[in-house]
C-alpha cells in the first residue's frame, strides 16, 4: 500500500515519506540505545565472559563494605557460606575475570572490593547468600576505579535487574519503533488520500493552518507552502464554517457528531471518505443556494421598492406636468384676461414650477391610476425619427426622378431632332451594332442619320424590327413579310 502510494504519487511525497521514516527510525534507535542499551550491553558482556547462562537462578554474595577496618576476603566468605575457608578457590574459579559493578575484575584470590557480586557454589548457605538471577552489571563509561559506590548502590537498589529485564527493555524499544513506523505509515496514507482529493473539495483546516501555511497542514509539495502563503481564493461565495464544524484538522462531517475523532481519520475507507466529502459538498451547496436565494429575494424586494418609489415619483411628476399644461393652456386661452385675474396655479406652490419650460410644450398624456383617462394632446409636428427616415427615403426617390427627367428630356430631344418616326419606328439596320473583326472598335462617323435618310423610303414597310438584327436578317424578314 505504501509503495503503491509512493508510486502513485509519481514522486510527489516519496521524499517526505523517506524523511519521516528515517527520522522515525533514528528516533527509535536513539531511544532504545539510551534506555535499554547499557543493560543489554552488560548482559551481553556478562554472557560472553561467564560460563554459566545468565538466566539461571544461582546463589551469589555481595561483598559488603569493610566494617571496623577489616575488609572481606574470599577465605572469610568461603568460611561463612561454605563452612570451610579452604574452599575459597571454588568461589575464585566461579568469578574469575567476571566484570564487577565498579568495572573491576576478580584476578587474584587476595583482592576483592566492596560491592562486588560473587557467584557462590550451589551448596553455599548462610548469611549474605542471595538466590536468584545474577544481576547484570553495566559497563562503566570509563574504567576509573572511583565509581564503586555508584555501582554498588545500583546493585543494591535494583537487585532484581538481570538479563531478562534487559530483554524486556529491548522488546519495549522494538515495540516503540513499530509504533513509530505505524504512525508514519498512517500519516503517509492520510496524506496520500488527502492529495487525491481536489483542492476545492478539501475542507478548510481552520484559521491557524491558513495563517501559518505550514507544509504539514497542506502537504509537503504545496506550491508555496511557506510563511506568508495564503490559500488561493476561489471565486464565488465565501465559504463559512458551519456552527458544528470545529477548527481541528479533521472536518466534522454531518452525522459524525457521536463518533470518536479516531474514527474520522482519513487513513481508511476512501469510498466512505469520498461519500462524506460529497455529502459535505452537497450541504455546502445547499447552504450557498439558500444564501443566494435569500440575497436574491432581498435584492428583488429592494428593486421592487425602488421601482415603486420611482414610479410614484414619475406619477407625481406627470401629474405636476399635467397641471402645469392645464395652467398654461388656460393662460393661452385667456390671453385677454388681466394678469391679476388669472387662475391660480393649481396644486403645488408656484415656487416648484419650472420658470421657462413647457410654455409651448404640448401636454403629455397622463394616466393616473384611479383617474379617468385623459385625451393626450396631439403633437404638432411628427416625430423626429419619421422625419429622418423620410429624408433618407427622399434621396433615392429624388435620384429616380432626376434620372427619369433626364431620360424624358433626352428622349424629347432625340424626337425633336430626328422626328417621331425615327424615335419610335426606326427601320431595321439603322444604327445597328457594327459588325467587324475583334479588336478595338473602329471610329465611325455619325452617319446613321444620313443612312436613315437614304434608306427611309426604301424600307418604309419594315417598322418594328429590332436594331440588333443584322441587315441580312432584317431584309429576309422583310422579304418574308412581303
Amino acid at each position, binding site marked *: 500500500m505504501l509503495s503503491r502510494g509512493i508510486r502513485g504519487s509519481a514522486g510527489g511525497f516519496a521524499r517526505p515519506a523517506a524523511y519521516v521514516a528515517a527520522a522515525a527510525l533514528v528516533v527509535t534507535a536513539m531511544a532504545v540505545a539510551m534506555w535499554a542499551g547499557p543493560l543489554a550491553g552488560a548482559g551481553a558482556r556478562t554472557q560472553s565472559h561467564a560460563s554459566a547462562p545468565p538466566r539461571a537462578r544461582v546463589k551469589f554474595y555481595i561483598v559488603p563494605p569493610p566494617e571496623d577496618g577489616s575488609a572481606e576476603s574470599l577465605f572469610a566468605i568461603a568460611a561463612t557460606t561454605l563452612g570451610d575457608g579452604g574452599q575459597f578457590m571454588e568461589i575464585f574459579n566461579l568469578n574469575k575475570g567476571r566484570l564487577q559493578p565498579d568495572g573491576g575484575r576478580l584476578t587474584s584470590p587476595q583482592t576483592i572490593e566492596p560491592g562486588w557480586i560473587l557467584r557462590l557454589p550451589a551448596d553455599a548457605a548462610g548469611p549474605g547468600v542471595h538466590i536468584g538471577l545474577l544481576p547484570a552489571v553495566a559497563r562503566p563509561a570509563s574504567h576509573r576505579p572511583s565509581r564503586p559506590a555508584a555501582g554498588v548502590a545500583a546493585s543494591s537498589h535494583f537487585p532484581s535487574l538481570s538479563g531478562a529485564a534487559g530483554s524486556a527493555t529491548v522488546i519495549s524499544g522494538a515495540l516503540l519503533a513499530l509504533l513509530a513506523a505505524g504512525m508514519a505509515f498512517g500519516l503517509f496514507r492520510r496524506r496520500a488520500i488527502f492529495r487525491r482529493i481536489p483542492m476545492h473539495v478539501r475542507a478548510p483546516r481552520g484559521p491557524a493552518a491558513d495563517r501559518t501555511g505550514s507544509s504539514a497542514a497542506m502537504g509537503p509539495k504545496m506550491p508555496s507552502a511557506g510563511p506568508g502563503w495564503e490559500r488561493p481564493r476561489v471565486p464565488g461565495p465565501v465559504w463559512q464554517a458551519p456552527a458544528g464544524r470545529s477548527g481541528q484538522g479533521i472536518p466534522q462531517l454531518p452525522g459524525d457528531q457521536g463518533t470518536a475523532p479516531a474514527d474520522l481519520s482519513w487513513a481508511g475507507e476512501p469510498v466512505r471518505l469520498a461519500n462524506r466529502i460529497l455529502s459535505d459538498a452537497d450541504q455546502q451547496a445547499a447552504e450557498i443556494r439558500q444564501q443566494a436565494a435569500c440575497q436574491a429575494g432581498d435584492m428583488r424586494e429592494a428593486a421592487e421598492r425602488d421601482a415603486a418609489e420611482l414610479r410614484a415619483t414619475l406619477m407625481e411628476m406627470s401629474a405636476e406636468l399635467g397641471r402645469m399644461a392645464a395652467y398654461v393652456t388656460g393662460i393661452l386661452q385667456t390671453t385677454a384676461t388681466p394678469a391679476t385675474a388669472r387662475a391660480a396655479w393649481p396644486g403645488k406652490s408656484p415656487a416648484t414650477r419650472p420658470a421657462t419650460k413647457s410654455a409651448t410644450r404640448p401636454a403629455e398624456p397622463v394616466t393616473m391610476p384611479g383617474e379617468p383617462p385623459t385625451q393626450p394632446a396631439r403633437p404638432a409636428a411628427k416625430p423626429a425619427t419619421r422625419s429622418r427616415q423620410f429624408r433618407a427615403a427622399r434621396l*433615392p426617390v429624388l435620384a429616380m426622378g432626376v434620372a427619369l427627367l433626364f*431620360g424624358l428630356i433626352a428622349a424629347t430631344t432625340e424626337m425633336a431632332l430626328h422626328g417621331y418616326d425615327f424615335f419610335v419606328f426606326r427601320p431595321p439596320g439603322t444604327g445597328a451594332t457594327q459588325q467587324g473583326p*475583334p479588336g478595338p472598335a473602329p471610329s465611325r462617323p*455619325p452617319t446613321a*442619320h444620313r443612312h*436613315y435618310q437614304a434608306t427611309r423610303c426604301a424600307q418604309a414597310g419594315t417598322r418594328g424590327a429590332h436594331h440588333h438584327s443584322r441587315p441580312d436578317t432584317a431584309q429576309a424578314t422583310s422579304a418574308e413579310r412581303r
Partner: protein
Amino acid sequence: MATPVAGPSGARPRPNKAPGQQRAARNPVDAWMDQDFKFAGSFIKRKTVALFLLGVPALAPLFFMSRAVIELNSNTMNQVEADVLGTGAMALLILTLTITPLVTLTGQHWFVPLRKWYGIVLGCTATTDAVLASITTSFAGGVIGRLTGHTFLLAGFVMVAILFPLLLISSNRAQRSLGKYWKPLQKLTYAVWGLLFVHLALLEGFGFQHGTNGPSSSIDHNPVLHQRLYQLTACSLPLLLLRLPPVKRWAARQHKAGHEKVVYLVFLPLAALYIIFFAYIVNEEIFKGVSAFRLQPVNG
C-alpha cells in the same frame, strides 16, 4: 466530404441572438436547412451552402462579359453585350420575382435571402448593361442617343434609373435608415417588371422574328419559345397568379391543413410552363455567354 451534424433539436443554438431575433423553422425543410455541415473543423449550415450554390450562378452574365471588358474587345461588346447582359438581367429579374411565389407554393423560407442577392446582382447587371451599351454601341446621337434614342432604349434607361437607386439602398444600413420606407421603395421592382414588357415589346415586337437559337440559319421551329417577350410572359403568369391574395390565402390554408400535394398539383402546369420558358432563357444566356467569353460572339 462534409459531414452533416444534427443535434437533437436539429438546429445549432445561436447564443448571441435574442429569442425574438431567431426565427423558428416553420417547415421541416427549413429545419433541415438549419442543420450544420462540418467542413474541416468548422460548422457551416446547410442553408448557407445551398444559398451559396444557388447564388453563384447569378454572377454568370457578368462573368461571361468580364473577359471582353478586361480585354476591351469591342467586337464582342458590340455584338452580344446587350444579349448577354440584357438576357441575364431579365433572368435575374424573373428569379428575384420567383422567390415570393415559391414561398407561397412550398411554405418554406430558407431561400428567402436569395431574393436580396438576386436583386443586387440584377442591379449590377442592368447598370453594367446600360453603361456598356452607352459607350460601345454604334447608335447615333452619342451617349444620350444610345441611352434614350429609341423607345425601347428609353424604357431600358428608365428601368436602370429605378434599379440603380434600389441597388444603392439595398444594404442593411440603408434599410435601417429608411425604416418603413425601404420596402415600398423596393417594391418599385414591380415597375421594372412592367417596363420590361414594354422594353421587349418595343425591342422585338410581337412577331417571331427572333425565333431562332443562335444564328438565324439554325431555326429550330420553336419561334415562340425563343421570343423574349413570350418567354417573359410565360414566366410571369405563375408569378403573377401566385401573388394574388386569394391564391396566397388558399395556398396557406392548404399548407396549414397539411395538403401540400394539392397545392403542388394545382400549380404543376404553371410551374411546367415557367420551367420550360425559363430553360430557354438560360439556354440562350449560356449559348451567347460562352461565345462572348470565348471572344467569338454569335449574334442572332
